[in-house]
């Protein structure tokens, strides 16, 4: 087989892979709809407001509910409100 034919075959395989990802995303999204629906029901039943992704502090666990002047509150890019935040280091002994 010529080199160009090999390349075209390779590119076609990659393209098919790309199409498969799009189809897979659509199919999986459909399959996961009932599961997401159940989670959404829990959100609605308990009145949940935030994702349980970052549980280390109040303002990371519930960024939408935290005090106005806590970190991330104005917008998530606001790591620290005031420069003093960069001088105070966390208590190293308590690190997990």
């Amino acid at each position, binding site marked *: 087989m*010529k*080199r*160009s*034919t*090999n*390349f*075209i075959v*390779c*590119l076609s395989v*990659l*393209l098919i*892979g*790309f199409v498969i*990802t*799009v189809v*897979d*995303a659509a199919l*999986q*999204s459909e399959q*996961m709809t009932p*599961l*997401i629906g*159940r*989670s*959404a*029901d*829990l*959100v*609605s*039943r*308990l*009145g*949940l*407001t*935030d*994702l*349980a*992704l*970052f*549980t*280390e*502090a*109040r303002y*990371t*666990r*519930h*960024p*939408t*509910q*935290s*005090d*106005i*002047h806590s970190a*991330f509150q104005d*917008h*998530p*890019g606001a790591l620290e409100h005031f420069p003093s935040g960069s001088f105070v280091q966390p208590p190293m002994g308590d*690190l*997990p």
Partner: protein
Amino acid sequence: MIAMLRKHKYFIDYTLGIMLRHKGKSLGLLTVYTLIIFLLASVMLFSHAMRREAVTLLANSPEIIVQRIQAGRSVMLPADYLQRIGNLRGVTEKRGRLWGYYYDPAVKANYTIMASEQDHLSLNDIVIGAGIARTRGLAVGDYLTLRSYQGKAFSFKVLKLLESESELISSDLLLINSDAYRRLFGIDESLYTDLVLSVRNPREIQKIAEKLTLLLPDSRPILRDEILRTYESLFSWRQGVMLILLLGSVLAFVIFAWDKASGLSAEERKEIGILKAVGWETSEVMRMKFWEGAIISLVAFFCGYLAAYLHVFYTSAGLFEPVLKGWSVLYPSFQLTPSVDGLQLATLFFFTVLPYTLATIVPVWRSSITDPDLVMR
């Protein structure tokens, strides 16, 4: 048409021949290029899927939450605020919520603890999130002991576990009876953590929030739209941070690729001269070089994207987990719903494939319009 296609096939043959002659260089470039696309595509796919998941789940969160602010901090809210609100037009339901945090020194983790009326729990029952069950090794029927505000131990029997599919929102959640909640934290009947208001017509939410701030001047209404906006920007920001961290490697690649693509070596210049001398036209030399750029960038783009898709949706973005996990002990185990944002993908394609391909053509065009004799010297 067929003749033109055949001609391009010959160009590809010839270009691949040249690339195989410099196997090490071509493979090195392809690997670095693929890696860069893989990282960029992973960040894009992950952030997009997270944003979509958050917005889908939290679309059912309460329309309005009312917090009480005292001396600049949110504090417990008197139950009579429910009466003070009265019958606001458009509000279909209003109720107080009891929730807070419980620090468990045994696993050094913060739990979110909430009173639930709908689960019909008795005083000693508890429903726990899958993350807590995993971390503490608890199953249905086991006992979980929590220390009250007076230091007294309260033992709760695990009635059920929250579904593991909902870990993204409930991993660290503890649900108990409202009386048990009040006894545990020493909160009397006259207080709630916040109020939740249901509004039938979404267009009335803003107006109701305005009325609330007039009725309860020390309150802070949080609207559902604000919750959704926070998550939109949270993941945009995380994506931005990751992209900035990647910027160094992207720039290194840009310099490397630009140097490789735009600065023609003496050997390459000589090769162009020979091609011109044996009768190749400028357009043909350029087409040949176009294929060189296109082959590398197309293969790198597709390989990088496919690897990123598998990484994000089939290995739960394992590479990003340490970054997201931070200090949290109860990081949820969750499977993201795959979703591909065409616009983001197109942006990635135009910012990676096109510049490299163009960067290969321009210097070739410059050399190939000069006299072959001069180029070969």
